[in-house]
């Protein structure tokens, strides 16, 4: 009790501004350490490039130009950021309950596939797009939610590790889509690349007026804000965070741990399914192997970089979308393989996780008078 009184008393001495600065200094830990990790990863990657006889300066300037340099590259970046926001939310929401779910790729693929399948009878019956698109979207959300929700069920009721189960289910999801796309649902109009029947030009989601980006981006941002409110400002979110902090304490308080886990996983899967819907309805126009483009995996990195905070996910997704968008330019200009971006992302991920060890160790970020 004495400690609390003292802590409360200290800021009064320094006044409001000093208190604010003090709080900023302490919370800057969560921004500065990931930034530091990114810089360190960039340095390590420069060494890697130098060892290969390539110029890091050229690489990073191309990265800037290809991702953020021109209006066209911004469009390219934001188109990639849209699915990344949603797949990162698929990681971040269960992470609040202490679950590491990495199956966003599978939920995206199945969600997109379900959307494309749902559109077939409607398009053939000549339904207008204001009927087709909502049905597609709802199917994608439902299938994605069920898919990751099932991971939650397996986790809670069977004790199966959610990381392994969700990864395995990604492979199963891709196999299910391939099975139908190469078989029963293959559209003869696409002889070269097996695909489902196209949803048709009239049903494609257009761009946001004035931006060369489809509606998936604003929707993703709105979903991120809604989920931030859900996880930080509601009883549900509070219960979820208690569960993530200590399952036993949550059970002792009578919280419905199983229901929280399953619902959070279903919300997560619904986000990834929605990403699949936008990939089909705004980019591909049909379901095929291009759906498994790795957005689910990059989304994991986005979520970890954003420290599982739904609001921070938006800028981080734009940042990583930019890196991905620059991949083509780097490949052409420097003659490097397309996996270059993957190496950089992997390196960033590893360094970022290593940087977790720094939390609470730097005296600069500590509260005044904390002499640990």
């Amino acid at each position: 009790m004495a400690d609390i009184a003292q802590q409360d008393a200290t800021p009064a001495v320094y006044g409001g501004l000093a208190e604010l600065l003090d709080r900023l200094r302490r919370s800057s830990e969560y921004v500065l350490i990931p930034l530091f990790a990114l810089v360190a990863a960039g340095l390590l990657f420069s060494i890697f490039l130098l060892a290969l006889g390539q110029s890091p300066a050229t690489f990073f300037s191309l990265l800037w130009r290809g991702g953020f340099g021109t209006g066209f590259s911004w469009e390219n970046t934001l188109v990639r950021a849209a699915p990344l926001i949603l797949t990162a939310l698929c990681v971040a929401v269960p992470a609040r309950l202490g679950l590491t779910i990495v199956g966003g790729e599978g939920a995206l693929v199945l969600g997109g596939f379900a959307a494309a399948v749902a559109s077939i009878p409607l398009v053939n019956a000549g339904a207008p797009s204001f009927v087709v698109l909502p049905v597609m979207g709802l199917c994608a959300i439902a299938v994605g939610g069920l898919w990751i929700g099932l991971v939650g069920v397996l986790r809670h009721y069977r004790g199966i590790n959610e990381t392994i189960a969700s990864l395995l289910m990604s492979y199963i999801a891709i196999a299910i889509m391939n099975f139908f796309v190469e078989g029963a649902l293959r559209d003869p109009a696409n002889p070269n690349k097996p695909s489902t029947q196209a949803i048709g030009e009239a049903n494609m989601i257009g761009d946001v007026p004035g931006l060369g980006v489809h509606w998936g981006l604003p929707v993703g941002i709105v979903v991120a804000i809604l989920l931030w409110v859900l996880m930080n400002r509601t009883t549900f979110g509070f219960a979820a965070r208690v569960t993530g902090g200590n399952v036993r304490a949550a059970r002792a308080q009578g919280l419905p741990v199983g229901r929280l886990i399953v619902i959070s996983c279903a919300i997560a899967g619904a986000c990834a399914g929605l990403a699949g819907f936008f990939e089909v309805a705004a980019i591909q126009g049909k379901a095929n192997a291009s759906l498994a483009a790795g957005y689910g995996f990059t989304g994991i990195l986005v979520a970890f970089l954003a420290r599982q905070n739904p609001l921070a996910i938006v800028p981080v997704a734009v940042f990583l979308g930019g890196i991905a968008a620059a991949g083509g330019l780097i490949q052409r200009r420097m003659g490097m393989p397309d996996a270059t971006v993957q190496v950089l992302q992997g390196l960033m991920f590893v360094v970022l996780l290593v940087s977790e060890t720094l939390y609470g160790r730097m005296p600069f970020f500590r509260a005044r008078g904390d002499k640990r």
Partner: protein
Amino acid sequence: MSGTDIGFWGVPLAMFAGAIRVSTPFLFVSLGECLTEKSGRINLGLEGTLVFGAMSGYAVSYLSGSPWLGVLAAGISGMFFGAIHGYICKLPKVNDIAIGIAMMLFGTGLAFFFGKPFIQPQAPHLPSINLGGWSDYPQIQSALEINPLFLVGIVLAVAMWWAFKNTRWGLIIRMTGDSAPAALAMGYSVDLVRFLATTVGGFFAGVGGAFLSLYYPGAWSEGLSSGQGLMAVALVIFSRWNPLLCFAAALLFGAAGAIGPALQSVGITQGYYFFNAAPYLLTLFIMIASVSPKRSLKGAPGELSITK
């Protein structure tokens, strides 16, 4: 064809042959993972190690002309990945499961990066031992063409099983995995034991990758591994951290993986992609059947984060 056509008997035979052929990478990765998990740590990144091992093994075999040198290179590169994982995990507050995912993405990225020039060329393959010379059926002959690495894997499994039970090192690893405080009290460095176990486990996974690119399917491509490294992790749980059961489980997974190609060989192409999913479904069902939230698993290392 009349004398050698064995009709639908070809399906079980092809599954048997497939079990021997496809199981080897499962066997090596699961033995590596078994060793790592016995010391109390989980390495989910072995999928990346497997892919990088496949690439480096193929590249070295192509450049040097010796497939065995390729196997060694794959093992050493795997060891390198294991060492990174082992070093990072000993830092405080670092999540070993997340690091595994990151190493998986990093390893596959690096393998694709360096493997680009090796997609086209043909590297020398590992030789095989023909045990089917007594039979007139070419199908049986080809089924009994066994790769030496398969035999090495069997020996390794038995040796590990024996060593866990009977040697000082085996006891130290098991003790570290069951109770870090006990190992500390006995004066052993928990971090060092786990570091070594992860490093050696990475070596095994790398060798498993070399089998993929140098024997079956026998060429380096970006779609070479499809989750074998990950399935092996689940396989270790299923075999209750017993190297001998790892071998049996690897055979089972090999057979499941061979269903699709086996049916295709007798003309059933319907559902090829569905049968491709068989190993993943099998893994999932096995986990559902063998894991329970109410009791801890028999033989599970007490320090393992994944069963807690």
